[in-house]
Each structure stands twice: as C-alpha cells, then as structure tokens.
C-alpha cells in the first residue's frame, strides 16, 4: 500500500469515528506508520468524547444557574458550543451574582438602620406604644407605655391587652375592635377607669404580603391636661358670654375683615339683628351709623381701626338705624383687638350705648335753662313794670272819676285803663317764667279743668273741640290758672293754624311711666292730654325750637305762648312734647303727674271769677308802705278820694316806727298796705312780723309786682289779712279795704 493511500484512509477514519481503523498487513513496510496513525485516531476519539462531556457539563451548570436566576434552560440550538463558550454565560451570571450580593448587602444595611430608627422612634415618641398580634396578645411595648400603665415590659409580652391596659374594665368602643371593623387606622379618645386619665388612642394595622392584619400598633397619648385646658377655655368662654350678656352696653366683635363674629343680646336689641343673621355680615351693615351730613362714616371709621397703627376711637353721639328703620342715638367706642403693640389688629370690638333718653333729657335741660335765664330777666321787668302800671292805673282811675262829667275824656281814660290791664296780663305771662313764680296748686278734677279751659278758648272761633276723656281720669295737683293757660294757648294755636276752621281733638287718659320709658319723666302715674289739630303742621327744621322763647313763625306772634306752656308744665313736674307733619296737622302731648290724694268735694268752684266793678267808699287811717314814690303818691290820692286818711312810708323800718308812734299817740292805723319787696330795705314780710308783734290784730294787706310770689298765693299763712297784686284798679283797692276792715269790725 502506498503512503498516499494510507493518509487518505486515515483522514476518512478521523472524519467518521465509527469507521474501523486502518487495515494493513503487519509485514507491509508502511505497517509502523499505520500503527502510529491508528494510535492517533484512537486518542482523537477519546478527546472528542471528553470534550462533548465537558460541554454538556457546562450547559448543565448554565441551566442550573439560569433556573436560580428564574428563567428557562438554554436550548442547544439557541447557541452552538463555540458561541456558548465565547458568550461565557457562567461568567456573566457569576458577575451578576456579585451585583446581586452587593445589593443584598446594602439592603441589609439599610434594613438594620431602619430597624434602629424604628427602635429609637419606639422609645423616643411622646406616647405609649403597644404592639399586638392578631389575638390581642402583647408583642412589645415601649418604656413610655410601661410608665403610663405601670407595667414591666418583659412581664407583659404574651399577655392579652385587656389584662394589662383595661384591667377588665373595657372601654367602649375598643380601639382594636374598631380598627378590625373598619380595616384602617382609627383615632379616638377615652377616659380609662383604671386611672381616670384621658387618652387619645390611635390603632393602626400592620399587614403581611397577603394583606392580612398580623400586627396592630396602638399609640396612647395622655391628653388629660389638654382636655382640662379645653374645659377651662370653654368655661372661660361661657363666663365671657355671661359677662357680655349681663352688661348694659351693646357689644359687637369683628374679625380682621370687619365681619361680625359675636354680639351680645343688648346689641341684638339695639340693632334689630339677631346674632345668627349678623354672623359673617359686614359690621357696617349691622351697625348702621352712616347718615347724610354726618361726619362719622362707618366704613371710614372701620378702615382706620383695622389698619396697623390703629388706636381706640370714641364717637360720643351718632344716630344708629336699626334693621326695622328705627333711629336711636348711641355713644360708640371702637377698639382694635391686638396681640401686641405693633401687630396688625385681629379684629375690632365695638361697645355702644343707647343715649336717646339722655339726649332727650339734655335737650330738656337746655330748654329749661333757656327759660330760666329768661325768667330772671322777665321777673325783674314784670315787677318794675307792674309798679309803673300801678301808678298809671291809679292815676287813670282817679282822672276817670274826676272827668266823669266829660264823657269823651272819661271814655278815653277808660280805654287807656283797659289797655293798661292788658299790659298787666302780658307781665303776668312774663312772670310765669320768673323763678319765684311757683304754681299755687290745688287738687283739681282734671276732666273739668281740661273741658272748661278748652271751651273758654274756642268760644267765638271757627273751630270746635271734640273731647275724648276717660271717665276715671286721675285728679291732678296743679295751679288751675296756669294749666288753664296751657290748654288755652294750645287751643288758640290750633285755632290759628286751622284757618278754615275744623275740629280739634282733645283726648285724655291715665298712663303709667316706668323706669325704661324714653320720655324724660320720673316713673309714676300720669295723665296724658293730647291736643290734635288738622292744621298746617310744623316744618321739620322748626320742631326742635317751638318751645324756645321768642321763637315764632306767626307774623303777629311774640313767641312766648308755647314756651310759657313748657315752663308751666315743667314747674308741674310734667312734660310737653309735639309731633307734627307738614300739611297733616300737629299733636301736642301733655303729661301731668296724677295727684296722690283724692279730689276734695268742693273742687268745683268757677275758674274765672268776675272782678268787682263797684267803688266802695270808706273811712279810717291807712298806712301805705312802698319804695316807689309814684305808687305812694297815687295810693295817697286814691285812698284820699275813697275817704281814708293816708300816711306814707318808704320801707319797713319807717312803717314800723310810724305804726308804733301812732299806737303810742292813741290814733292807730286801721289798715296797712305793704309792698312785699323793698330793694335794699325791709320788705313787707318782715315788717308785718314786727307790726303783728306791736298789734297782733293789725290788718295788713300785701301788695306786690311779683303777682305769682308764693307769699301772695298763701298770704294768710304769713299773717296778712288781704292781698292785692299790682297793678290794681281803684275798684279793687276799695273792695279789698272794705273786706279787710269789715273783718276787723267783726
């Protein structure tokens, strides 16, 4: 066999391992070569088998690792052996495991840290923590909980929480049961009977991977102090509310936006807003103090108060318009609510008081003062004027009698005398202002007084009066003349304003005034008289002034009528007010205190006695004391004409001396006429006391220009036998002397 042939066979056998080895004769010269090749072929077969086993082993291991990683094994067709070896999956997986282990190590470190953190939180948290298993058995608890419930941590583990915490007195609902029922964390508060402390309990579930609750963390916080503080705050709030309720002022509190957050009952009454309605509303809507022409605009005031540099503000008087439109006068204080000197206000507090009554009183006092000051002047003028009139009237009386043969002159003098008496009436009116002009009061039947005075006033006019007077109208203790004058003035006013005539309603009723009444009257029983006309009415701007002296809208008025009414009613402790609407009419309201006493039987005498017209001549010695020379002269002449012999004294001292001398000389005076007021000298009152000492039966007549002096009204109490107001006519003088002297004769 040739060498080429052997090499070809050997190559074929290597490619096909199952083929038989080289077959060659032992004696062939190439037999050693063939043996060598056969050895190599055998070795090659073993190596190939080993390689295959190794590859299979590697694939097996790779698959094993892939399973660990969590995936499926490698399919042999996916990667051939060479690619497999080249890819090096074991290397890749090993490298990846390094990363996985590294990550695990880091995770463990973090877990350990987290555990430490939880442990620290567990012990450092302010509340007691209890960890329970699903059967309410204690797994762990922190020190705070052990302190709170006085238990030892290591002894309670494994015990039921009801044995350790509730001690058999289970609170309802149980926070653990509530958490189980709702499936989520619950928070509640309860007082534990074991120590009577108030706890807030949070019960939170811990779930496993299957969402099953395996643990419960219970957090106990002692809120006893907090609850006590809350109760104290609530009590304080209640006390504040009671305080606000019991003070007499209206109080409104706002937030920083100026919206009402609180108001007391007085504020509700004054504003007409209930707290419910006012809550959250702008304060200016509730406290409506905005008014035209007034300087206090609510919003201006408020924007100032709620600014940072605001301070306390006081408005002494401003109108408040209530929800129903009623207007009141209030005094208002506004203060910002600040926590510190420089802090912005958190709101404002408004305190206000109804001063309507006070203001009405003030107005009354002002009016009274005006009239009082007029009174001082009027009193003096009236007195002097009456003295002058006494001289004028006396002289005219004398002249009239002397000229009785000359009818023309006598008529002129009679008219002059009448005019003088009308002048006397005017001074009489002035005197009602005078301070000394106290009313001379008697218990009077008010119904009769009203009717008679009114009827007397409208007789002869175009108006008629309709009376609506309660039958049981209380009697009053008044100066009949003065009250008659008031009613007269009011009816005359009605007559003047109702130019076309018409009806004046006069109503009267009993009323009780209590202490809360806005009318400035002392509480008590009153009669109220309404005089209602249907005339022109009074302009709004005039209504506050109609009682002022000298204020008039009438062309011929002197502006005294209503101020006299006012003055008279004031002196009777009463009140006169007015309501009027232009074009509709006017109503005057008179209030007079009812008399405490019953009406005496004889209070029915006529209010307008006729004056004597006859001249009575007489005889006897008369002493006249007056500081006015004019009066002394005319008295002397008049008395002489009447048949008396007259002596004159200028003051009390002189009169006493003259009287005393006359008595000593055995020719005493039959009567003395004394002037009540002697400026700078002894007056009639004091002189009379002396004269009565000399002769207790002395007949003394008092005369004065102050016709309304109380002494004149109650002359007998001061020892006088008669009274004659200045000026007086000759008839009046003769009449009084006749009366006094006839008493003396008796």
């Amino acid at each position, binding site marked *: 066999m040739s060498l080429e042939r052997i090499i070809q066979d050997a190559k074929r056998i290597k490619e096909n391992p199952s083929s038989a080895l080289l077959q060659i004769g032992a004696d062939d010269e190439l037999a050693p070569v063939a043996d060598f090749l056969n050895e190599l072929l055998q070795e090659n077969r073993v190596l190939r088998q080993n390689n295959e086993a190794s590859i299979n082993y590697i694939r097996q291991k790779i698959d094993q690792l*892939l399973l660990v*990683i*969590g*995936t*499926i*094994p*490698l399919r042999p067709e*996916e*990667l051939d052996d060479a690619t497999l070896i080249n*890819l090096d*999956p074991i290397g*890749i*997986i090993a*490298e*990846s495991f390094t*990363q*996985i282990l*590294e*990550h695990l190590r*880091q*995770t463990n470190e973090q877990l350990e840290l987290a555990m430490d953190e939880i442990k620290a939180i567990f012990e450092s948290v302010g509340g007691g923590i209890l960890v329970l298993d699903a059967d309410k058995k204690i797994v762990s608890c922190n020190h705070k909980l052990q302190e709170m419930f006085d238990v030892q941590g290591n002894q309670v583990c494994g015990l039921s929480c009801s044995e350790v915490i509730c001690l058999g007195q289970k609170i309802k609902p149980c926070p653990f049961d509530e958490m189980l029922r709702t499936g989520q964390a619950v928070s509640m508060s309860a007082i534990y009977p074991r120590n009577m402390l108030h706890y807030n309990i949070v019960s939170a579930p811990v779930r496993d991977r299957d969402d099953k609750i395996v643990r419960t963390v219970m957090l106990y916080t002692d809120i006893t102090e907090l609850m006590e503080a809350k109760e104290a705050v609530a009590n304080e709030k209640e006390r504040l509310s009671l305080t606000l309720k019991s003070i007499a002022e209206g109080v409104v509190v706002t937030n920083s936006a100026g919206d009402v957050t609180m108001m007391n009952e007085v504020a509700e009454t004054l504003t007409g807003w209930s707290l419910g309605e006012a809550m959250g509303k702008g304060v200016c809507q509730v406290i409506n103090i905005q008014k035209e022409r007034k300087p206090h605009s609510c919003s201006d005031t408020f924007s100032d108060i709620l600014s940072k540099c605001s301070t306390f503000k006081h408005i002494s008087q401003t109108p408040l318009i209530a929800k129903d439109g009623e207007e009141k006068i209030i005094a208002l204080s506004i203060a910002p609510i600040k926590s510190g000197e420089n802090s912005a206000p958190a709101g404002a507090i408004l305190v206000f008081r109804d001063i309507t009554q006070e203001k009405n009183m003030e107005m009354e006092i002002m009016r009274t003062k005006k009239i009082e000051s007029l009174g001082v002047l009027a009193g003096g003028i009236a007195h002097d004027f009456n003295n002058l009139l006494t001289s004028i009237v006396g002289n005219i009386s004398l002249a009239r009698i002397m000229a009785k043969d000359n009818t023309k002159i006598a008529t002129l003098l009679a008219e002059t005398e009448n005019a003088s008496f009308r002048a006397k009436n005017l001074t009489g009116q002035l005197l009602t202002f005078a301070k000394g002009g106290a009313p001379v009061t008697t218990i009077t039947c008010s119904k009769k007084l009203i009717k008679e005075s009114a009827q007397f006033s409208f007789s002869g006019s175009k108006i008629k009066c309709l009376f609506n007077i309660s039958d049981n109208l209380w009697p009053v203790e008044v100066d009949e003349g003065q009250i008659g004058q008031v009613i007269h003035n009011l009816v005359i006013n009605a007559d003047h304003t109702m130019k076309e005539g018409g009806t004046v309603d006069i109503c009267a009723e009993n009323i009780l005034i209590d202490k809360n009444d806005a009318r400035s009257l002392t509480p008590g029983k009153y009669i109220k008289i309404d005089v209602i006309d249907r005339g022109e009415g009074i302009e709004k701007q005039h209504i506050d002034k109609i009682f002022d002296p000298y204020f008039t809208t009438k062309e011929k008025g002197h502006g005294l009528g209503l101020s006299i009414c006012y003055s008279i009613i004031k002196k009777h402790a009463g009140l006169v007010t007015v309501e009027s609407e232009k074009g509709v009419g006017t109503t005057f309201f008179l209030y007079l205190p009812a008399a405490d006493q019953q009406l005496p039987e004889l209070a029915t005498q006529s209010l307008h006695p006729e004056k004597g017209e006859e001249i009575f001549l007489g005889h006897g010695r008369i002493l006249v004391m007056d500081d006015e020379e004019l009066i002394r002269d005319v008295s002397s002449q008049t008395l002489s004409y009447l048949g008396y012999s007259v002596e004159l004294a200028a003051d009390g001292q002189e009169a006493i001396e003259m009287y005393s001398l006359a008595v000593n000389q055995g020719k005493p005076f039959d009567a003395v006429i004394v002037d009540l007021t002697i400026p700078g000298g002894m007056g009639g009152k004091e002189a009379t006391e002396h004269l009565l000492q000399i002769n207790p039966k002395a007949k003394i007549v008092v005369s004065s220009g102050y016709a309304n002096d109380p002494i004149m009204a109650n002359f007998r109490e001061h020892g006088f036998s008669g009274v004659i107001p200045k000026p007086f006519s000759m008839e009046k003088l003769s009449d009084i002397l006749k009366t006094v002297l006839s008493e003396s004769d008796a």
Partner: protein
Amino acid sequence: MMSDQKIPENIDIDMRGQVCPATLLVAMDKLNKHRDAIKKGLEELCIKTDNREAITTIPTTARNMGYSVNVTQMDSFYQIVVRNFTPESKK
C-alpha cells in the same frame, strides 16, 4: 436637582426575534459591563424585546441587582429601561 446632573446616555440593545434566556444573558452582560456608569446615573440600558418571558425575567433580575426598571409596551415590542435606583424611582 436634575438640572445639576448630565442626561444619561442610552445603551440600546435590540433583541427582537430572540428569546429567553439568551436575551436575559445579553442584558445581564451589559449590566455587568456598564455597572459603574449605570450606578452613577451616567448611562441607562434600553432593551427592545418582543419576548414576553423577557419582560418578567429581565426586570426581576435587574431589580435583584439593585437597579430600577421600567417596562413600556410599544406598538410591536416592549421597551425595558434599566437605570440607577433612587428613592424617587421606587414610586
């Protein structure tokens, strides 16, 4: 915070048409080789695959290795993005 950091570079591997575990092995190989850059947030591994098994095995393995994984279904394949783990990426 993000503005201070560089936008990570993408390492794209398109494994469409290939199945697990070869896909997984390739992904793991890339995560091993780019470990430092990905952990520092400088690179992100972006794998395109249409093998459903791979969208379970790759994220599980990557998470075990401490990475954060996002799987998004696209029109005809899944995109798996593996990046550095941060507390935010856990959300």
